[in-house]
């Protein structure tokens, strides 16, 4: 060993010594890079194929409003035909397409929820394509929104967050509410936990974004757990038929129609059947 180091030391001024050191350095750096650095997209052939499929679908179904490269299209009047989709992320595509909001059937104040037009595979491809254009929120993993094993404490916390942040638009029972200029916060009854999670991530349409800094992933899950339990707790509903869970407006309507209406019919019956009325 001593011999080797002595020999190396003796040859350190050899004309080829610099070259050897350079080659060694390059070799180590290259090896490290190959193992540590992120793999480029091209590395995954299946993913590349998905993006290509997504691009095809996008060009057919989405490009007319969002532009061929998802750069967005402005109308002649300066208003937006469709917003740019670069950087919206896979979560946005998954939310909009799998709830049927996109593609829109017609322009309007807001894209309504309807039956989805694309299959799950097609939606995945579209999401992959849009995600490939720029970094954005990814589709949440199933465990992010799995509310089934939420503890009671977590559900109650979700309820507090729900009442503080969500009920103003979505209503105390998640029945939905009106917003200015024909827009609305939709009902959340029967909505997938995944879509609720994505909506908080991306803030679709009128909804504000609840980023992970504002509302942690755990809190997002807690809110979902509360809404889902609110729905389950309604089976059967304590107190009877909920009249649409819209608050006092529908209660007043029923009070007048069923209550006063019914009792007025009774008054007609009572006064029509007196001792003096001969049939």
């Amino acid at each position, binding site marked *: 060993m001593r011999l080797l180091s002595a020999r190396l030391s003796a040859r350190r001024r050899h004309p080829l010594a610099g070259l050897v050191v350079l080659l060694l350095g390059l070799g180590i750096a290259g090896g490290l890079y190959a193992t540590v650095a992120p793999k480029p997209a091209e590395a995954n052939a299946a993913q590349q194929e998905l993006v290509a499929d997504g691009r095809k679908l996008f060009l057919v179904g989405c490009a007319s409003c969002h532009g061929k490269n998802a750069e967005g299209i402005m109308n002649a009047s300066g208003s937006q035909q469709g917003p740019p989709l670069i950087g919206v992320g896979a979560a946005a595509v998954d939310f909009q397409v799998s709830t049927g909001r996109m593609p829109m059937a017609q322009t309007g*104040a807001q894209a309504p929820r309807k039956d989805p037009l694309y299959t799950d595979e097609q939606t995945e491809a579209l999401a992959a394509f849009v995600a490939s254009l720029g970094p954005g929120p990814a589709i949440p993993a199933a465990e992010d929104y799995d509310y089934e094993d939420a503890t*009671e*404490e977590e*559900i*109650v916390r979700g*309820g*507090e967050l729900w*009442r*503080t942040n969500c*009920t*103003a*638009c*979505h*209503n*105390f*029972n998640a029945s*939905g*509410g*009106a917003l*200015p*200029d*024909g827009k*609305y916060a939709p009902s959340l009854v029967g909505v997938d936990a995944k879509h609720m999670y994505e909506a908080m991530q991306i803030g679709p349409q009128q909804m504000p974004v609840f980023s992970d800094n504002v509302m942690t992933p755990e809190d997002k899950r807690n809110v979902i757990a*509360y809404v889902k*339990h*609110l729905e389950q*707790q309604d089976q059967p*509903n*304590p*107190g*009877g*038929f909920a*009249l*649409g*869970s*819209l*608050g*006092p*407006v*529908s*209660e*007043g309507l*029923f*009070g*007048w129609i*069923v*209550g*006063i209406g*019914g*009792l*007025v019919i*009774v*008054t*007609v019956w*009572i*006064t*029509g059947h*007196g*001792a*003096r009325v001969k049939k």
Partner: protein
Amino acid sequence: MSQQSKINAPKSVSGPVTWLDDRTGLANLANKKFLRKVFPDHWSFMLGEIALWSFVILLLTGVFLTFWFKPSMAEVEYHGSYELLRGLHMSDAYSSTLDISFDVRAGLLMRQVHHWAAILFIAAMMVHMLRILFTGAFRKPREINYVIGSLLLMLGILEGFAGYSLPDDLLSGTGLRIAEGLIRSVPVVGTYTSFFAFGGEFPGDDMIPRLYMLHILLIPGLLIALVTAHLVLLYYHKHTQWPGPGRTNRNVVGEPFLPIYTAKAGGFFFIIFGVTSLMGALLQINPVWKYGPYNPSEVTAGSQPDWYMGIAEGLLRIMPGWETEVFGYTLSWNVLLPGVVAPGVLFTIALLYPFIEQWITGDKREHHLLQRPRNAPSRTAFIVSLMTVYGLLWFAGGNDIIALKFDLDLNWITRFMRVLIFIGPPIAFIITKRICLGLQRADRERALHGFETGIIMRAPSGEYTERHAPLSSTETWKLVSHEQYDRPELEPAVDENGVANPASRRSRLRSKVWAFWYDDDVTNVSREELEEAHSHTDGHHRAEGTEVEGADEPSELEPKH
């Protein structure tokens, strides 16, 4: 004692009855006219009874609720059976409301029956009031009773609002916040009054106990006193009746209080109790557990008051956001006008209407016969226009729910209402008045020419005519017996000394209002016209076997002027 032995009642009955009678004299009372009071039969006379009986149900269920409700804003941690709120900090009031809903046997049913009965109570008072207005039952001697009734309605609304605020859930807190805003919008004294009412800054710790006192003691006490006065006056005045043969301003035709009317009214109580119980059992009302405890930083879509406060909500929602700054103080017209001034004006108009009409007609006589709404066209039209205002504001108060459920634009509903609230009532007035006048003309036609028999006759010349048959005297009486007012005489512009008469200007105004109110009315059939028409009918188109009975009672057929 001797009376009891005469009817041979079993001793088990006669004993206690005699004991009671000896000490209270109740039998004497029962023998008198008191229990033989006559009530005429008509469905619309039962509407007030819906209110009365729902009030009884409110008292019964309310007592039940007080056993468990804790009127305190002290903070407690919830540990009841409702899982989604367990461990949360909330007021004792809200926590005990949750306990009533989930842990007290029949508590939720009682709460819901109480709430539905409250909704019915005020709705019934309102339809009852409309019946009184439409039929002219507020005229002398019943003006005081009308005023008492209006106060009952107002107190009922306050009572309802206090009850709505008690559970201290998100909805009641939001309602209280609006009430606080209304109080504060009053210039100068508003802020002081608000601090006085809430015991400091909103929401404070005092409001729930104070509202509780109002809700279970003060307002119900006033309500009971006024209801009693209302019923005593009803007894004293006797009930009004629809005009008909044998019915005059000096008699009442109907059924005696005992036994028939008692059976009907008593039975009606059980029907109303049944209906409210069914509603309480089947229809969920105010699910407080879903609203969560009140927290001033929270609010929910679908925050509305109960229906009877809906017009105040509607007024607030359609009012533009006008504010003025005076010497550094803000005058909130956007709250003051819709929240305080407009409801006050509407209520005052309703309260004073009997006196306004009396001033126009100058009629100081007693009236116990009702008017058909068509025979007072301007009054009917006026009430319908008030109802239009009410309905539009009601609609505006639910604008978000309407926008959501009918896919409408919230802002356009508001804009639409801002215009319609001014042009809707006059349109309603004109349309209603035209309908009334049309009905009056049809009545006149029917009284003079009889009813259409459906028999088509062909004359030798080939002309087709329909045979008209004269009405029975009963029918005719109903069509022609109503009174009409003459235009009040104008005071001379100058008195006998040639000095300007101060009463003249007022009398001219009154005359003008009179003309607006009554000039268009279709002139009632006079006795001469009726006799003339009958002789005409007799000669030509008299249906076989039909007798003209009206001719037998000419004095009754004479319309009174």
